[in-house]
């Protein structure tokens, strides 16, 4: 089921927020273009077109005053936190850009469609974004099973040169033939994340590594990464257990825990979404599987931790064995310019969830996080795409996108690692960061052996 953005919601939401109320008042009283730009940008970014006459266009991809990025992501369902936080992080930066005149005079807006982290709606949304909405490019897609199915759509419309930028997945299909040429990635891959986790576990003597994974393309991608990494060390997987995509935190994972317990692993690497991974970590602890439980970046660390801590007096005991790999640095590391900017803009705008997206599963409340790894990734994605569009000059065309991306060489994004693209390099960042829970936050892990000693 495809969803389209309805009208009105964002503006109404903004009325409830004191800072934005001021901006709306400014626009209403006609006090000038300085205030009108952010107002229009926000409505556009949230899907409400400030100029109704431009809706339904099919030919042009870039208007005189804006560039539309098409987004299909999970804004409902068990993974809604990922799509929402990624959007919020990007919005914080786009709001800032639009407030300052946009890119070469054009605002950047996002056209949002909800796919609920389901492949079929994602395919339908992608077709709609390309055919009906004529977006300039696709941006911030969430998930492997969704992106994997959307890639053939890009190949189908290859003559229109529509590229997918910075999907929130580390899977291989958008990094390799036959679809790699249609996507540009920023984050490191699951192969890199799982290799890092395996290397670290093996380095501290935890050689029996098992995998708990979502039984779909995403889980398989991570599973394959663990398998390859273990093979490099001459090891094989100690065991594996699966769960169905969309499983909620309330579900029991006893069966999965028992399957893995029977294999006596030293560590478990989870390739899943936060609801199921939190349920697994909870049940593993409850059933006496006291070994490190690692998660990859897609899990959404803050969402996972919030679920596991909710209403528990012994929350720390339940999260003590968690270790999560990240593809962006810690949002606590204010020595990095991008992190400082992110924190400042998130605090300034505090972007709300897109309340006017027509959701596949409506009526689900969502509580945002002041900062999170996912929103930081969304922020960094927005920062780089803005730079790429800026480099395309006054008249950006789809045909010039690839050239503009390949022109990004040794670009300092402010995350401690320079970004570089080329015909044979379609992934900008390579670094992996490891974090463990400390109270209500994930902090960098410095000492693996000290944290997870082998008894």
């Amino acid at each position: 089921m495809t969803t389209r953005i309805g009208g009105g919601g964002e503006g109404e939401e903004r009325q409830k927020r004191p800072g934005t109320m001021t901006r709306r008042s400014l626009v209403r009283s006609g006090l000038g273009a300085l205030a009108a730009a952010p107002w229009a940008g926000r409505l556009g970014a949230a899907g409400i077109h400030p100029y109704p006459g431009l809706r339904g266009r099919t030919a042009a991809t870039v208007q005189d005053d804006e560039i539309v990025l098409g987004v299909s992501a999970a804004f409902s369902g068990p993974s809604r936190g990922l799509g929402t936080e990624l959007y919020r992080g990007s919005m914080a930066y786009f709001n800032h850009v639009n407030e300052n005149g946009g890119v070469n005079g054009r605002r950047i807006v996002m056209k949002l469609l909800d796919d609920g982290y389901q492949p079929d709606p994602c395919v339908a949304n992608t077709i709609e974004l390309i055919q009906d909405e004529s977006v300039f490019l696709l941006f911030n897609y969430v998930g492997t099973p969704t992106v994997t199915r959307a890639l053939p759509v890009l190949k189908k419309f290859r003559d229109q040169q529509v590229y997918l930028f910075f999907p929130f997945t580390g899977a291989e299909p958008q990094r390799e033939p036959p679809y790699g040429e249609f996507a540009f990635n920023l984050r490191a891959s699951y192969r890199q994340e799982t290799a890092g986790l395996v290397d670290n576990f093996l380095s501290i003597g935890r050689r029996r590594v098992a995998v708990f994974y979502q039984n779909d393309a995403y889980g398989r991608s991570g599973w394959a990464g663990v398998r390859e990494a273990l093979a490099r060390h001459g090891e094989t997987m100690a065991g594996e257990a699966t769960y169905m995509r969309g499983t909620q935190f309330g579900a029991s994972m006893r069966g999965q825990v028992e399957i893995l317990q029977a294999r006596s692993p030293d560590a478990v690497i989870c390739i899943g979404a936060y609801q199921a991974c939190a349920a697994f970590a909870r049940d593993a602890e409850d059933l006496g599987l006291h070994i490190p439980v690692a998660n990859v970046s897609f899990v959404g660390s803050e969402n996972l931790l919030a679920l596991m801590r909710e209403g528990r007096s012994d929350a720390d005991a339940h999260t003590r064995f968690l270790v999560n790999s990240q593809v962006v640095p810690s949002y606590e590391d204010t020595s990095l310019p991008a992190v400082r900017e992110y924190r400042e803009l998130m605090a300034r705008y505090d972007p709300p969830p897109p309340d006017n997206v027509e959701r596949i599963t409506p009526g689900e409340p969502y509580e945002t996080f002041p900062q999170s790894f996912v929103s930081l990734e969304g922020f960094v994605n927005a920062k780089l795409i803005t730079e790429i569009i800026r480099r395309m000059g006054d008249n950006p065309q789809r045909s010039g996108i690839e050239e503009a991306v390949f022109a990004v060489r040794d670009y300092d994004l402010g995350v401690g690692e320079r970004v570089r693209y080329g015909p044979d390099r379609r992934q900008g960042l390579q670094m992996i960061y490891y974090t463990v829970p400390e109270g209500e936050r994930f902090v960098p892990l410095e000492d693996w052996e000290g944290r997870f000693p082998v008894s």
Partner: protein
Amino acid sequence: MTAMIQKGEEVLRVRKLFRKTRFGFFALFGIVVLAISILSISSVSRELRDEYVSNSESIAKNIADSSVDILLNRNLATLQSLIDQFVQIESIRYIYITSDTGEFLAHTFIPGIPEEILASDPSATEAVERSLPGLGDFVEVGSPILSGVAGTVHVGMDLERLGLKIQRAVGQQVYLLCIILVTGVLASIWLVNLASRPLTELLEYVVTLARDKESDRSTHGDVLVRDDEIGDMARMMQYVADDVGLARDEGTAAGGGD
């Protein structure tokens, strides 16, 4: 009086005769329906099962053909995505792909690969029936990928769902046959009644003749005007009765002359 009773018994005997005929029709229809049902269950079950196996073999072959490049590119996420789409087909309950060394490269099992599957021959391609605890009964077929050097695709079809399909198909046929049976029995009863009514009329007329009451004869006059065998018999009976009556009257008259 004695003659009347005798005639009455005769009527009763005729009705019994038709009751047996009706029972014979019913039994015959029943046997036909039963035989057709058994034949139908057997053939539908066999054909549906064959079709299931054939379909799953086609699906396994389709996956095997589609998997070659994906496997050679070591793109297991795409491979998983591929089998996830096929497993949405009704009655396919599981798919797994093993490498040429027997390693499980992709599968659809939750929460894990059953021990029975782990213990089976990963390169086997012939159709086998499996009973997996907690999952149900399946018929599994396999198809080699690149003649087996790249691995094997295995597709499991749900036998319970197959059973339900067979039940539904056979049920529809048996339902139709039952309607034919009931209609046939009702029609046979109606036809037997139709056939027995003139005989009953004839018997009633014969009883009237036996009573030798001229007044009663007129109430059964219809049977005499029939242009069929019953009418012929009635007229013959009347002739005989008249003849016998005449002879009796002559005998009485002669006796009276003595």
